């Protein structure tokens, strides 16, 4: 499946923002360092990406920095050959 920024962004908004949370989340919003996705929840984001794009992300690559924005995630997936 083709990677789209909007798919990932929508997933983040739906899964990690509470109903009353009106923070703006865009492609380059800090997700981990901005406190939107904590380190424990990162695992579920990793599982989502692996399931959605049929890829296995090694733990060494699944760092807070690599997951810190939708843009960063796209870059990681590209690096792993997922376009």
């Amino acid at each position, binding site marked *: 499946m083709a990677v789209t920024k909007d798919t990932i962004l929508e997933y983040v908004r739906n899964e990690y923002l509470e109903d009353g949370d009106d923070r703006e989340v865009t492609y380059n919003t800090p997700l981990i*360092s901005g406190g939107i996705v904590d380190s424990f929840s990162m*695992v*579920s984001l990793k*599982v989502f990406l692996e399931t959605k794009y049929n890829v296995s992300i090694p733990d060494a690559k699944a760092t807070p920095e690599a997951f810190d924005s939708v843009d960063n995630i796209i870059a990681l997936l590209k690096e792993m050959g997922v376009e």
Partner: protein
Amino acid sequence: MPSKPSNMKSYEEEVKTFSWDISKKELEYKDGDIINIGWYCSDRICEKGKAEKLALIWESSKGEEKRYTFNDLRLITNTMASYLKNLGVNQGDRVCLFMDKIPELYMGFLGVLKLGAIAQPLFSAFGSESLLTRLEDATTTAIMTQKKHLPKVRNILEKMPYLKYIIVVDDDGSKALREREFALNIETEPKVEKFDCFPSTAETKSVLHYTSGTTGKPKGAQHVHYSLISQYITAKYVLDLQEDDVYWCTADPGWVTGTSYGIIGVWANGVTQCVTDIGFTADNWYKFAEKNKVTVWYSAPTAIRSLMKEGTAAVKKHDLSSLRHLASVGEPLNAEAVIWSQEAFGMMFHDTFWQTETGSIMVSNYPGMKIKPGSMGKPFPGITATVLDLKTSEPITKKGIVGMIAFQPNWPSIIRTYWNNEEIYKNKFKNGWYLSGDRASIDEDGYYWFVGRDDDVINTAGHLVGPFEIESALLEHPAVAESAVVGKPDPVNMEVVKAFIALKPGYDQNKMLELEIMNFVRKKLSALAMPQEIEFVDSLPKTRSGKIMRRVLRAKEWGEEIGDISTLENDM
């Protein structure tokens, strides 16, 4: 790295001469006096001539900064106490603080104590169900929260008729508040110059911290104002807090470290602290420490191991020469991390051991005392500690033998009960000892060495999670027939939650379902409780009486001997 004489000159000498009277004398407290933690942490410091000294430097994840003096602290805590009183909150009422690490959380905590109500801080990442379990148990009267967390409260409101006041601290008026909801803005609310603090005495209830056990729901550990005697002196001796320090405690006040040493210990000593809610990355944390010239840093092994993963190169990009003392809490700090901290920061993290139930540090490494990397250290002066034989509950005299860490129950900050659970509280004591539930051995030099929990509680990133709560949540998922939750070893978090799940007929084992179940638990309970790994199984190991044998699953995860399986119903 600056060095200065430590507050505790010599551990060996202190052990010989220490008594809790030292703490009482410094606090100018005599038995029978009024003792109110809120007053001690603000008004008293002002009366000591430090009104204009910085109490709190706060920075948000967006870089917004706020600074408060001890006089600001005094006024704002008065204001919050007065606000709650005028609303109708009374002495002894439970007031939940359900906020991110914002100034209102820290000051609201003291405000509640000034009123004589009982502060019930809860981790703001808890989902509705976790929140309900704890508020229901305490029949909480009021909750202070933020707009973003309001939906979680509203979701469960109809189940809480006793919850009369929902105080929103960041309401901007853009959406109408509903019934039982009130707005309080500490910046614009007229400051109350004089508030008559509740004349609490030693045994007046102060803080209710919820903690998880193997079975049943989380329990409310009830503390009293007298806990200050322990928290003040341990902050002074173990964390070595001194007049011109800038202290950074990374713990959230939803957990006991964040109140005992993130509010009470530091401010009762009149020391400046800095707080941030910025998300963890090594660079963020080092920048924060550098910017604020942090001198004493109290953090958790999970964070330290995460920093270690980034290496010393990341440290060297920043000027952390202000640091002079490091301490850790929540889970054992492995030797590798202790040694690494010497290389990275020029000094070692001092591991400290204590629990929600103890209220203050019990076994620790001390400034000036030799650290044995990987060791818990030695009992705090004034604490009588031992390890008990697991069968006889008698003190083990032989060195190097593993037993249950136990303490003589005579220190000021010991819990007085579990809320609504006197029976379980009584089970914490045997043969005149308080049972910690943790196992250790003592070496020839008197150093304690942690071995593990004596029950099924999972310690993940320094936080205890009870498997029962998670298994109960899992069972609410339509696909789950049975589940068992254990801790799985993790190089950073020590343990993470792993769930073994047997599915109902008609459901297929696949990654999408795994993800769905993970998110289900995360939203219901918290990210901490979310299984980091799910293994679908056809059946779970059970005794012939039908009880799930978690220890069998756990032993496999840890590569340990499974032990006696004579009662096992089915083959593994």
